[in-house]
């Protein structure tokens, strides 16, 4: 998996819950392309039209709080989110994203320094975020340990599959 990328910031406020990221009434869908259609529908009905693959989501505290529905992470991955930077995450959402191979960075104070549309360069291993529009540098907590191992493998499914083949 790439550990460095450049993308455009898409900003959100605090407590963006999973019902806003992916409304409950669509949880019955199981195919990725169907799930992708409802990304952020509860928070911003225009999101799917405006968001481009490679864009970066920047949010305040508790992004992805609420339900355990993996659809919230699936839908953001499916629309091509390069990574999500927030001041803190709902814990199940955080795990789901890591498991799916969608990088998530915790960066205290980030929402005050980055505006919608800013061009960002992000390194998930060092945690360095460069706002290329304003010239500001921010430091997120770098990803380490088992979560980084999962992300580097492109998600936990690959890891488990590999373990399985090693065993046999």
């Amino acid at each position: 998996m790439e550990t460095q990328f450049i993308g455009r910031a898409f900003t959100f406020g605090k407590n963006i819950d999973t019902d806003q990221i992916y409304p409950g009434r669509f949880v019955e869908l199981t195919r990725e392309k169907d799930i992708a259609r409802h990304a952020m529908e509860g928070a911003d009905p225009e999101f799917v039209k405006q968001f481009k693959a490679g864009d970066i989501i920047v949010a305040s505290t508790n992004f992805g709080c609420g339900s355990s529905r993996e659809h919230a992470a699936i839908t953001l991955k499916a629309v091509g989110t390069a990574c999500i930077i927030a001041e803190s995450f709902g814990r199940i959402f955080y795990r789901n994203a890591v498991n799916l191979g969608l990088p998530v960075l915790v960066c205290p104070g980030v929402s005050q320094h980055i505006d919608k549309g800013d061009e960002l360069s992000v390194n998930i291993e060092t945690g360095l975020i460069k706002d290329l529009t304003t010239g500001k540098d921010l430091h997120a907590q770098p990803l380490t340990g088992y979560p980084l191992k999962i992300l580097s493998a492109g998600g936990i499914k690959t890891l488990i599959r590999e373990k399985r083949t090693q065993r046999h």
Partner: protein
Amino acid sequence: MHAIEKIMARAAGEKEVTTGQIVNCRIDIAGINDLYLQTVRSFEEMGGIKVAAPDRVIVFFDHYAPASTIIQAENHKHFRTFCSQQGIEQLCDVNCGVCHQVLADRGMSGPGKIMVVTDSHTTTHGAFGAFGTGVGATDMGVILSTGSLWFRVPEIIRINLEGELGPGVSAKDLILHIIGKLGADHAVYKAVEFCGPLLKRLSISERMALCNMTTEMGAKTSYIQPDDITFDFLREKGVEKFETFFTDPDFSYAGEYNFNATGLTPRVAAPHSVDNVFPLEDYAGTRIDQAYLGTCTGGRVEDIASAAKVLGGRKVHPEVRFLVVPASKDVLLEAMAMGHIQTLVQAGATLVSPGCAACLGTHQGMLTDSEVCITSANRNFPGRMGDTGAKIFLSSPASVAAAAVAGEIVDPSPYFVTGRPL
């Protein structure tokens, strides 16, 4: 070590664990909800062929049971086939009820267990001294494949509860008050323990409501030290064998808080976040379209009983839909035996089969734009019960019932003060 850490250490086969450590725990109970067919897909994508420990897996049809769309019916069908192919005998089909209540009813929630369900409110089982936590589909796919899962040992905060709850004021009001004070992200990644003298007077049902709602503070898990109330409950369910863990006296908490319930009045969480908490009287007079009594937070026998006390001999307001959804079949049967269901239906309530119903906006009581609902549930996010323009107030079961009668938000306390006429 804290009791929670000892539970994790036991499950990970370690002597000791410390905060921040990543441990791989054997899962005692793995619950899958009908909503997450993704779990089966993830399991298959991991190359899974045989479920590692089918006897520790339990499947619940609760979030949209009975099915309301063809896709939901398909998903249920898929699960039934999966269970029979994999030898998963514990399939709680339509009408069993909400996962957390079913686990409690069956005596499966118990001290020292690691309980993981694909539902965020698995923190509920802290009421029994279990380590309960919610996960997503892929984590559950890992459990199906391996029988275990990795966790980070969390920081633990302690909330000390003192004083007395007044008439018509319940544990739900108290936990709303606490969340309002501490905030919806206060306990993110952390565990929350409740302790203190008030706890000794709170029933299992009320303790479940407290632990259930810690999810709305972001908690990973919650904990109440098992005591005679816990043991009596388990014995009643025929459970004799369990292992209880205790916190070492020198354990240091990441934070400690005191809350005194004396003088607390009924609370509501106003739209659109759970920590947007006010005294109910601030919203008294707000007209409602729907009152929804139920869910894993407020759909137990005691909750239905308090609604029946309010509704007895009265009528549901003609402009209100009053939905009563027992959390499980056992709850329904017990409430029927006590005559509460009769009382509520006679008063004009709509009885819905056990399950989550309108709670998550998939079926059975959805709201349209600008409608107002008061509910004993745990979430009032925009769009939670349907249209994002609908407004959801969270309250105690008693407040839901009182609003159903009045057609507007109203203090339920007078119904519970003996000898005082309304």
